[in-house]
């Protein structure tokens, strides 16, 4: 059964059947400190995560209620680069380097943003099972809070390891917040080369 919304943005040149749902989850009441996809099957060529989320920490920049992700419980710290565009009513910014504590940030609303606002994004994880390559990911994420600004970011991340990715973890960038109720994460596998 085709998954709605996946056709237009799937990896180019691949038949629709090459895109399969692996697992998905919705955060329940009270939020979660983290979400972990474990025992990821090694039978696909690439992975894709689609998310709709809201952070559980407060931030003066309400569009920056960041969520990080890890591979195999490892931060993506080594040699990663980040390029982004952050827009508000005042300015747009680009930056590189990422956060020094290793959190690659997904741009979702903070807990003090308007109620019921969420950010969305897609993470492509290439050759995740290939043990001859270091692992890279490309991320599109963002949210729009109307008069309180918004953010859209294009991010690339590197995990400097040839290990196969068997788990992916999402958590709040401040370490102590949570991922809010109704946030959704869906993991897909992409077949073929």
């Amino acid at each position, binding site marked *: 059964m085709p998954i709605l919304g996946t056709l237009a943005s799937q990896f180019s040149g691949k038949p629709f059947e090459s895109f399969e749902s692996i*697992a998905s989850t919705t955060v329940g009441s009270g939020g979660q400190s983290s979400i972990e996809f474990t025992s990821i*099957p090694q039978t696909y060529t690439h992975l894709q995560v689609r998310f709709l989320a809201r952070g559980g920490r407060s931030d003066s920049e309400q569009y920056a209620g960041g969520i990080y992700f890890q591979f195999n419980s490892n931060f993506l710290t080594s040699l990663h680069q980040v390029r982004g565009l952050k827009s508000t009513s005042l300015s747009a910014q680009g930056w590189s380097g990422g956060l020094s504590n290793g959190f690659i940030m997904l741009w979702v609303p903070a807990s003090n943003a308007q109620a019921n606002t969420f950010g969305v994004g897609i993470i492509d994880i290439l050759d995740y099972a290939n043990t001859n390559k270091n692992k890279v990911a490309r991320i599109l994420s963002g949210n729009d809070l109307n008069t309180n600004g918004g953010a859209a970011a294009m991010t690339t991340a590197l995990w400097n390891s040839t290990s196969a990715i068997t788990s992916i973890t999402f958590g709040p960038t401040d370490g102590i917040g949570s991922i809010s109720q109704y946030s959704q994460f869906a993991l897909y596998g992409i077949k073929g080369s």
Partner: protein
Amino acid sequence: MPTKLVVNCETGEQTEIELTAEEIAQREADAAAYAAEVAAREEAEAARAALKASARAKLVAGTPLTEEEAAVLVL
């Protein structure tokens, strides 16, 4: 007690698990690192904004800019 949601992709099972003391300690360390990161970022942004304001004022007044002020205006 904070919990994490574990989704087993093999079985489809979803389990809420309470964090261990070690995981909670790691979260606290992460929080401290994050706070330091935010403070450093805000300090750098404030310094850059002050430098730009100073450079702009000097340009308008026709007075010489420092090397730092010139650098912040020229990409």
